[in-house]
């Protein structure tokens, strides 16, 4: 037994790694898209959307992701909706939760661009969408990238909560191995290292992008 047992389970760990990676990538994409839209709409100060967006933000930022995940997974079943798959439920919860946090990062980044930029762009006749697309967002990127990647790294670790609704990601697969061979310390150590292997390259990529954006 010993480490050999963990080595023999590497196939299971790899499955967990892939599941965690898939859920992470999917929710980074959807969470960023949602955060971008909400952040833009909040800075655009559309009167009709002010309150609904604020309510969304506060509700999802102000309650635990774990509760949201359980609520969506079991709530859907309770309401008699067609059973939601664990992956889908986890993805929806992560999107809504991370989208709320990301929208605040985007909003702060947009508001950090001096007001004169928008005024100069308006004076040239650019439309509101053109101003965001060609003038504001390019300047927002180097500002938001560091906190955004920090958020993504947090998100990868948050995917572990999906274990609570039975999604077989890294932690749950690790638990399965422990159920069979014991050795919780060693197994969880390996699990932690795998999370680190996912997260650390993200830090490196972020630093590269940040440098490039600064020198552009």
């Amino acid at each position, binding site marked *: 037994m010993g480490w050999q047992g963990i080595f023999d389970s590497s196939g299971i760990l790899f499955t967990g790694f892939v599941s965690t990676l898939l859920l992470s990538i999917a929710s980074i994409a959807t969470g960023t898209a949602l955060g971008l839209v909400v952040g833009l709409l909040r800075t655009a100060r559309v009167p009709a959307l002010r309150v609904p967006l604020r309510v969304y933000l506060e509700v999802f930022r102000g309650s635990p992701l774990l509760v949201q995940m359980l609520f969506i997974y079991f709530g859907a079943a309770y309401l008699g909706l067609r059973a939601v798959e664990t992956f889908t439920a986890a993805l929806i919860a992560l999107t809504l939760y991370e989208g709320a946090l990301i929208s605040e990062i985007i909003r702060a980044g947009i508001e950090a661009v001096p007001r*004169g930029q928008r*005024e100069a762009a*308006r004076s*040239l006749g*650019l439309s509101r969408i053109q101003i965001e697309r060609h*003038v504001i967002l390019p300047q927002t990127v180097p500002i938001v990238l560091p906190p955004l990647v920090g958020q993504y790294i947090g998100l990868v670790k948050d995917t572990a909560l999906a274990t609570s609704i039975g999604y077989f990601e890294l932690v749950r697969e690790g638990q399965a191995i422990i159920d069979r061979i014991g050795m919780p310390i060693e197994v969880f150590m390996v699990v932690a290292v795998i999370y680190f292997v996912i997260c650390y390259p993200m830090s490196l990529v972020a630093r590269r992008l940040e440098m490039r954006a600064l020198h552009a």
Partner: protein
Amino acid sequence: MTMIELRNVHKRFDELEVLKGIDLTVEKGEVVIIIGASGSGKSTMLRVINNLEPIQAGEVWVKGIPVHDPKRADEVHRCVGMVFQQFNLFPHLTALANVTLALQKVKKIDAEDARRRGLAALERVGLEDKPESYPSELSGGQQQRVAIARALAMEPDVMLFDEATSALDPELVGEVTGVMRQLAQEGMTMLVVTHEMGFARDVGDRVVFIDEGQIAEQGPPAVLFTSPSNPRTQQFLYRVLNR
């Protein structure tokens, strides 16, 4: 032909009334210099003309466009170019890209033609050798000239200058006022908020003195600078000319 007309324009920021009934008419080809103490409302007046500030009462017409009508106000940007105190160049774009952005996105001119026009605009301000420089690589005077080129490339009927030289080191002021003089000679309609009294005297067709949100006095520079009739104008000129 009347290019700009303000009728009884009132503008307030919350409790503070900044423009208290401004009436002003600017003819095509006229160069109008606007002077006044800081906080008198002169910059606000330019910003109102360019639809950057909503007004509470009165009318603003630019080349027949009712700028006071929120539904049509945006049309004003087709015929007005504005130059700001802080340049407001887009820092992520080269000098040329700053000039060509709106040509391509607003006027829908293809990349090649936009490039040609952009280079021509940079040449007008003496920066034909700097198209690929980023704003951070240019001096303040050069940045402001790019900003002028950017506005000119859109072929505006009116150019507004909001303290265009106030943020510049003294030795760089001349290169910017030089471009503005040339523009005035070419017959551009210009509204210029400035503290450069020499420029005002040489280039202005008319000088407007704004005091506490109202036009206190206006007239040809020769008259206004030598024998102002309003005591407030006398006071202001005495202070700025005897610095």
